[in-house]
């Protein structure tokens, strides 16, 4: 059927599907493809009055301005750094948590811990950053514990120092997503053939040996595919938390590409430069996805598309 010519009978038979497809395509074009036309703005001296059609084309001038802007270069660095740190931290924590949770032998305890571990995922970044503010404030629990154990003399104002910002963001991501990200590894672990563990036990393998030789190889394909999916998103990982936690004192390390776009594009009204920055981000993301997809292909792992 697939390769055969489409007949009138098919069209009549599939009329309902065709009508719905048509509507969905119209919707998709408007909301997902039409904004791509806006990329033209990056090559224009866009003015809302003249619009997309009549604004003056200026070639790559906006991109040149972008890359000679120290702030933008700093913003790229921040986005990449936080993206990589967050990815590494959340990734490793999720795998470790899944493996260790799997080793918990009391079923009830396992269930309770797992249920609790999902909770933060369902909370918005607004709530999470609010909670962080409380925990890290002068009278918050972190300072209290540190002072109590004499690790510091004075409470630290964590949000006033640049060196704390990236670790705080990484911790927040780990806190929020570890349990959620572990779901898929736990599912992968359950599908490992139990006889492998029995065989390992007969060979005298202890817990660590079993984890190293059975569990980890068993979930390797899952780890690989998730890593691939996430690497492509490395530049997308930075908006809400940085926007909500950032302040004037740490803006050199807190601002990301998305915040730059929001600041220049929406608040300052320079749509062209904002769009140019957005295009840069999209292109880098797509290149990353393609590269990692090819690496995966070469190693015979599952692919994304």
């Amino acid at each position: 059927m697939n390769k055969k010519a489409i007949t009138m009978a098919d069209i009549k038979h599939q009329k309902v599907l065709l009508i719905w497809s048509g509507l969905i395509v119209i919707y998709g074009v408007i909301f997902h493809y039409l904004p791509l036309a806006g990329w033209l703005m990056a090559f224009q001296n866009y003015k809302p009055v003249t619009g997309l059609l009549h604004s003056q084309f200026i070639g790559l001038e906006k991109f040149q301005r972008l890359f000679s802007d120290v702030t933008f270069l700093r913003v790229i660095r921040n986005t990449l750094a936080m993206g990589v740190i967050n990815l590494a931290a959340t990734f490793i924590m999720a795998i470790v948590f899944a493996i260790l949770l799997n080793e918990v032998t009391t079923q009830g305890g396992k269930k309770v811990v797992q249920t609790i571990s999902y909770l933060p995922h369902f909370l918005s970044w607004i709530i999470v950053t609010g909670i962080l503010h409380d925990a890290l404030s002068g009278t918050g629990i972190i300072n209290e514990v540190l002072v109590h154990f004499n690790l510091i003399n004075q409470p630290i104002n964590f949000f006033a120092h640049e060196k704390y910002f990236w670790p705080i963001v990484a911790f927040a991501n780990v806190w929020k997503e570890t349990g959620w990200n572990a779901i898929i590894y736990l599912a992968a672990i359950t599908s490992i053939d139990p006889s492998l563990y029995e065989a390992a036990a007969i060979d005298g393998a202890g817990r660590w040996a079993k984890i190293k030789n059975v569990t980890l190889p068993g979930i390797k394909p899952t780890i690989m595919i998730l890593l691939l999916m996430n690497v492509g998103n490395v530049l997308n990982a930075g908006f809400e938390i940085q926007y909500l936690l950032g302040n004037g004192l740490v803006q050199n390390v807190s601002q990301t590409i998305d915040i730059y776009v929001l600041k220049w594009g929406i608040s300052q009204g320079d749509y062209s430069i904002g769009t140019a920055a957005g295009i840069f981000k999209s292109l880098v993301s797509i290149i990353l996805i393609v590269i990692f997809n090819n690496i995966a292909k070469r190693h015979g792992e599952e692919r994304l598309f």
Partner: protein
Amino acid sequence: MDSVGMKTMSAVKTKSITLEKTNTRRKHKKISGPDLAFRICNGIFMLLFVIITLYPVLNTLAISLNDGTDALRGGIHLVPRVFTWKNYQTVLEKDNLIAGAIVTVARTVIGTLLALVTNAILAFIVSRKNFMFAKPLSLFWVITMYVNGGLIPTFLLFKSLGLTNSFAVYVVPGMLSAFNMLVIRTYMRGIPDSLEESAQLDGAGYTTIFLKIISPLCKPVYATVALFVAVGQWNSWFDAMLYNRMRSDLTTLQYELMKLLSSVTNQSASAESMKNSTGTVTPTSVRAAATIITMLPIICIYPFLQRYFVTGLTLGGVKE
């Protein structure tokens, strides 16, 4: 596919239960030193994990039930020191929070229904094996996962479509998503073709097949997608800030919460004014109460829907 997973899961379960039994039976002689050490360490790790996850939430609860000015002294952990309902009263008397709550509930209900219906229809269409455009239509959506216009073109488009300063901007643009479509599609592909074929022999059209045969079987995956969309709707604030900043009647709970957070950051200024009007409430304590109210519906619901989101993630992870 699902049932196989369930089988292995229950197999693993029974296995670990028997293991546990044998372990307890020969407790005094069989558990080796390293094994015991591992268990203890693992137990401590899990305990720490639970404490770190729950403490901030319980602490917020304690602060929300504590007198505001008193809370500023610090030292409140899990139990309020000077108990009061005043923070909650203040929250419930704030018009903007009430308006935000109404809009949030509305967008969650309407947005979830819209997203569910449209994603189900799309997934149904692209999972019909003999539909002529199934593949291209699928690709058309998968591309949107990787390429998008970005913030500013989208913003300008919504503006020119008249979506700014409207409720529609909350529910229409994000209605169809490639991820949700893929989750439902994967599930629908697992339904045997023979069901559709025999229905067609009985003269059923696609509408009947969708409504009467496929959809009833897809209830679990519909629940999954509904949960994902509902949580997203409940938690979003950025669209409210970006598109509906001027319309105080279209504000959302999370956006109001965000404004409260920034008022806490500039506490010294606003604390005084609030003190005068209500006596014992501070921005911190009010925000704690608003946070708890915002969290509550989610905390009450999610534990009962666990199996749905576990299914959804597994389906979404295995794309092709």
